[in-house]
């Protein structure tokens, strides 16, 4: 016998109204990646050589840099959404799960930050 009212027990236990957010952002990033990933794969395979001069000249072009940044950010975002679900499905125990999810988030933010930094550095002429 609890002194809590039925309403008090039910409050907060239901939907947080955020269930569709993961689904929707996954679809949005997927749609963007259809185009960005095809552009990236075709561009990489089209480069005549992968020596430093060729690659840095390619990355210095305005649209290449912009599309590369969009690709890295969108891919990291989409990857985070996907790996998060894998962890949620296969890592058991609330402590391990929370820790794994935190690491997944940190890792993807770091990957995106490093990628964007590297692209900007080359594109803006900081590389020697």
């Amino acid at each position, binding site marked *: 016998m609890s002194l809590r009212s039925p309403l008090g027990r039910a409050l907060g236990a239901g939907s947080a109204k955020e269930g569709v957010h993961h689904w929707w952002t996954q*679809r949005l990033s*997927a*749609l963007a*990646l*259809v185009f960005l*990933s*095809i552009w990236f*794969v075709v561009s*990489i*395979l089209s*480069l*005549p*050589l*992968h*020596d*430093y001069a060729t*690659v*840095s000249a390619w*990355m210095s072009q305005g649209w290449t840099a912009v599309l*590369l940044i969009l690709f*890295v950010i969108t*891919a*990291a975002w989409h*990857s985070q959404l*996907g*790996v998060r679900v*894998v962890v949620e*499905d*296969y890592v*058991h125990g*609330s402590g391990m799960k929370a820790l794994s999810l935190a690491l997944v988030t940190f890792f993807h933010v770091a*990957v995106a930050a*490093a*990628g964007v*930094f*590297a*692209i900007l*550095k*080359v594109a803006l002429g*900081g*590389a*020697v």
Partner: protein
Amino acid sequence: MAERPLSPHLSVYRMYRYSVLTSISNRFSGVVLSAGLIALVYWLMAVAGGARAYGHALAILSSGIFKLLYLALLAAFSYHLLAGIRHLVWDTGRGMERAQSQHSAWLIGIVSLLLFAGLAWWMLVRAGGAP
């Protein structure tokens, strides 16, 4: 908290059906591509590090084991792209009848194999062969 049922209750499913195989392949190829993202950022950071740093990185990235990784990435890309498009079509409410879904499973399987063969051929015949 009471023990509650967990979602991947593998024992209740019949495995090796097209739906199970296409689903787990999509997930697996996605994880492979996530690993590829690390290689991509390593490569980008190497370019940002200048010509000498890039030379060191390229020596690693051009090794045989990395060539295998690129083939795996192209295979994962080919499958994940088509399986993802299949999901986007499903999201519009189309193609969800069992016969249609079996049909599209075969379709993405065959087309992704062809796409992978084409991309792998492109990668292997062109000069360099690095990322």
